[in-house]
């Protein structure tokens, strides 16, 4: 019995050593083996499996993936769910052929990716605006002008550039925000004495939100407020809950997100001005929250592909993509 065990043990040892080697190599080869979407032999890109990279929120939101597939009438072969922001890398590295992203993300240009046009106007508009609790605004009416001045200066190109400075060049969001505000003359170099406040500024946890949050912080500080920096709170509901419960006083929310997620409407709005009006009215009445001037850029969701893939396959819009996927399934 025991001697049998002894030989069994040596066998196990050998097997284990082999396994160890295998795992070592397997792990190493992980990047090399991309999920079957490499170009075919004749330079004609063949995507064997239509895998889609999405973050957790997008994969379940009513205006997210499930509805998108319904409207365009197609279905991805597989969905890889991952952290927000990782999708760009996943697409760039060839792990997936299609990924979800935000229209203003700096990495789109830098990674050689393209946005697919939302030709059926599925995605609602997402213009961000500072949302402030009314009590705070009543106490400090000047906040309306301080924070309201920022939005109109931000168009899509500007925002992509700012985002790129963080995500590509590795600058700190706060530094990017400071540079921009200084250039625009919204703040000055002098250090103000912080006599008012405190005001708690929040943001969600992704680059654009961090920059916008930093802008609020800097602008308020410049106007002599003592500011508690609570930016980087996580997802939408987390920031929203924090605002409604008074844990934070202000953060930048997107009109479309508020309309669908926070206010619980099912039907998205596709016009920026309309969305802003409706959202600010309802939020004031229901939640005592005030929406200040919204930014010019529309950071809606977008579907992205690698530029060369898209060009070779002739995909420009989401409808093109849907057609291509449906054909591949036949």
């Amino acid at each position, binding site marked *: 019995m025991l001697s049998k065990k002894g030989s069994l043990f040596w066998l196990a040892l050998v097997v284990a050593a082999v396994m160890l080697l295998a795992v070592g190599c397997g792990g190493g080869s992980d990047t090399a083996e991309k999920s079957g979407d490499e170009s075919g032999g004749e330079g004609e890109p063949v995507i064997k499996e239509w895998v889609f990279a999405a973050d957790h929120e997008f994969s379940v939101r009513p205006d997210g993936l499930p509805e998108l597939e319904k409207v365009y009438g197609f279905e991805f072969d597989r969905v890889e769910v991952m*952290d927000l922001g990782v999708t760009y890398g996943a697409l760039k590295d060839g792990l997936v052929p299609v990924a979800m992203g935000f229209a203003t993300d700096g990495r789109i240009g830098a990674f050689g990716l393209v946005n697919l046009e939302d030709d059926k106007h599925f995605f609602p508009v997402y213009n961000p605006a500072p949302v402030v609790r009314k009590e705070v605004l009543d106490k400090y009416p000047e906040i309306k002008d301080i924070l309201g001045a920022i939005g109109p200066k931000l168009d899509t190109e500007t925002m992509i550039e700012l985002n790129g400075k963080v995500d590509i060049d590795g600058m700190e969001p706060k530094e990017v925000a400071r540079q921009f505000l200084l250039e625009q003359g919204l703040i000055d170099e002098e250090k103000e004495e912080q006599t008012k406040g405190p005001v708690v500024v929040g943001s969600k946890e992704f680059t654009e939100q961090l920059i916008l949050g930093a802008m609020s912080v800097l602008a308020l500080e410049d106007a002599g407020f003592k500011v508690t920096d609570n930016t980087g709170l996580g997802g939408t509901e987390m920031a929203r809950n924090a605002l409604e419960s008074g844990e934070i006083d202000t953060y930048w929310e997107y009109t479309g997100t508020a309309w669908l997620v926070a206010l619980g409407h099912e039907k998205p709005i596709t016009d920026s001005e309309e969305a802003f009006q409706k959202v600010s009215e309802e939020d004031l009445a229901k939640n005592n929250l005030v929406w200040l001037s919204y930014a010019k850029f529309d950071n809606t969701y977008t579907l992205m592909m690698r530029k060369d893939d898209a060009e070779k396959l002739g995909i420009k819009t989401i409808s093109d993509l849907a057609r291509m996927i449906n054909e591949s399934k036949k």
Partner: protein
Amino acid sequence: MDFWSFVNSRWDKIFALTIEHGVLILTAMAAAIVVGVVVGVLITYYNPAAHAVLYICQILMTVPSLAMLGLLIPLLGIGFWTGVVGLILYSLLPIVRNTYTGIREIDPAILEAARGMGMNERTILLKIKLPLALPVIMAGIRTATVMVVGIGAIASYVGAGGLGEFIFRGISRYNKDMILTGAICVSVLAIAADLILKLVEKKASFR
């Protein structure tokens, strides 16, 4: 070299987040020690409760930290305190268990002698039981602290701040330097806590 330039350009942030992480851990551990020791002491007086409590603590440990923190959000909102409560729940098991066993493993002769000499239960607890169980309790606190420093990184996800922010932002931005910075700081914090508590533990030992 990339890494060092990254670290060099962010000393203030690294410092601030490390402090934040430390405060998170200290707050959680302070509360966990009070709660854990009190619970651990109480259950030594009633055995059936002890088994139940220890079992519950053990179950708590099997809940993934991410899920535990997530479940606290509907109750506590997001932010520092959610992280603190989550970390408290995780550190309870080692502290409660070690307090319990530390006291239970005291030579019954010592307690009988104390009782026979006319010491009242309060004095016995404060002067005999707790000092004798202290090395074991300290070991539990050390285990809990090292563990909680690591879990604290995940607590950033629910807005508790701390070094996890480096890691989460690093993931989002695919930034190895950032993740590495977070990881190293957390490790250093854990090792430092371990060393300090080891020292305290040695001091607490009466032999």
